[in-house]
């Protein structure tokens, strides 16, 4: 069997052997439900769509994704199993991809398990299911980017707490950077072009574009390139660790 697959299976299994997976799933599903119905005014809006549900996803990921990525490399470094893993016949890339896909599939499972809300909205009205599917895809891509960031920063340190905080910090920056308040704050001091460039880095902007149901290549590329970029950085960090 291919080593990426072997690492993926091991990681997934370890989520479900330790309580991580169940705690994550329960909290994710409960919070997603509560936030949609109470904070998102799901009923009061009187519209048959899942807008209030997907709007909450970046903030849910902000807390929950670092919680599953923080142990990814930090735990292996601290427990000494990194030495075992890296002396088995696989490349750093294969190890990184195995771990990344395990986490990404897991988030995918969490998203699939939100299906009751999709059934609810279809029962209550007749939503545009194409838009909902696109929103799910956008949400999953955004989760992948968060995971790639977490995977990279977990390789940076042997402390899971540090990995968690750094990941949450980078993610919140990437969410907020495109917000009008943030951009207004800099509009006096920075040149217009730079501000526009920074605004394009915003994860929220690309997520909302996809969530409207428009699959623009630029938005897809944004997420895919972000993932690749952070994973490359993570592999380089691991390689650096072997030299230091």
């Amino acid at each position, binding site marked *: *069997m291919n*080593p990426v*697959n*072997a*690492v993926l*299976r*091991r990681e997934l*299994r*370890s989520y479900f*052997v*330790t309580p991580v997976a169940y705690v994550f799933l329960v909290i994710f599903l409960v919070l997603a439900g509560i936030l949609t119905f109470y904070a998102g005014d799901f009923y009061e809006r009187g519209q048959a769509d899942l807008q209030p549900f997907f709007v909450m996803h970046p903030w849910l990921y902000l807390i929950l994704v670092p919680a599953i990525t923080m142990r990814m490399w930090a735990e292996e470094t601290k*427990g*000494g*199993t990194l*030495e*075992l893993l*890296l*002396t*088995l*016949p*696989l*490349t750093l890339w294969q190890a990184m991809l195995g771990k990344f896909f395990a986490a990404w599939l897991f988030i995918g499972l969490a998203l699939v398990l939100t299906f009751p809300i999709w059934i609810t909205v279809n029962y209550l009205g007749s939503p545009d299911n194409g838009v909902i599917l696109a929103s799910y895809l956008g949400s999953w891509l955004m989760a992948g980017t968060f995971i790639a960031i977490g995977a990279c920063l977990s390789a940076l340190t042997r402390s899971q707490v540090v990995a968690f905080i750094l990941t949450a910090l980078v993610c919140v920056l990437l969410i907020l950077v495109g917000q009008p308040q943030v951009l207004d704050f800099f509009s006096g001091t920075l040149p217009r072009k730079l501000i526009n460039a920074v605004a394009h880095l915003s994860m929220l902007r690309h997520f909302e574009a996809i969530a409207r149901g428009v699959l623009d290549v630029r938005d897809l590329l944004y997420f895919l390139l972000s993932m690749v970029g952070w994973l490359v950085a993570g592999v380089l960090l691991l390689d650096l660790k*072997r*030299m*230091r």
Partner: protein
Amino acid sequence: MIETDQLTRCYGNLTAVDALSIRVEPGQVLGLLGPNGAGKSTAMRMIAGFLVPTSGTARVCGYDVSREPLKAKRALGYLPEGAPSYGEMTVREFLQFIVRMRGFKPDTGYRRFEAVVQQLQLEDVLGLCIDTLSKGLRRRVGLAQAILHDPPVLMLDEPTDGLDPNQKHAVRQLIDVMARERTILISTHLLEEVHALCNRVVIIARGKLLADATPAELEARSRYHGAVSFSAPGSGMSQEMLGRLPQVAAIEVDPLDGRITVFPKPGERILEPVETLLREQGLEVSEIQLERGRLDEVFRQITTAESSVTGSCA
């Protein structure tokens, strides 16, 4: 085969391994000996491809660990220091993970799995979490992991550390069986292990190679090599007589149990003359022993000799 050529590793200003060149052939069991912090584990980590050498090269079965890491890793079975493994997995899950990582087809993989489980007597603990195992069992799981793919080269970092005497014996027997036709490199700071396992010894301290010999050659360097020791009550008179023997260099008496050790002059054999003298004196000797030499003494002598020399890395 394991070859290292001027293998060097620096951590900041500290040279952990300093231009180490060794070569281990098939059929050899080489014991890498040294005090704590001598660079044994660092050297092994470089050979295993975990750490990148600052300079120099290491080859496993002819494959350079930096240029062809996957081929080198396939030829190598490695037990890292402390036998790390994934604590939340059961022994079965962990070994099956290794089977998949080693790229076995299901049927051959299963046969190998069965074989190592039997070899290391893990049948009864297959369903247990590794976290709940004793230190000795964890070490055995680590060993099972290292030999699972039946590698031509085996490298074990302190394989018997923390085991009780029976488990040590079992592990040594296993290594003995595996030793034929394989290349085995073992690090240890237990001198008894050298006698039990190794047919060659390399002593390193502060990252430098200080001795490369067979255990017997090392023992011959000891002051005690060829010395005769015995216990006899009331032997005060005979000490003087012994001192007058032309072959004898010195006599020492253990202040605790009164055991007398007679040291020969270089190249002299003294067992017979000493025995003859004792018989002539009419002394009752309960037991008399010809010493082979003491490895611990040689070890101390070698590793503390040049304490002023420290490596430097730019």
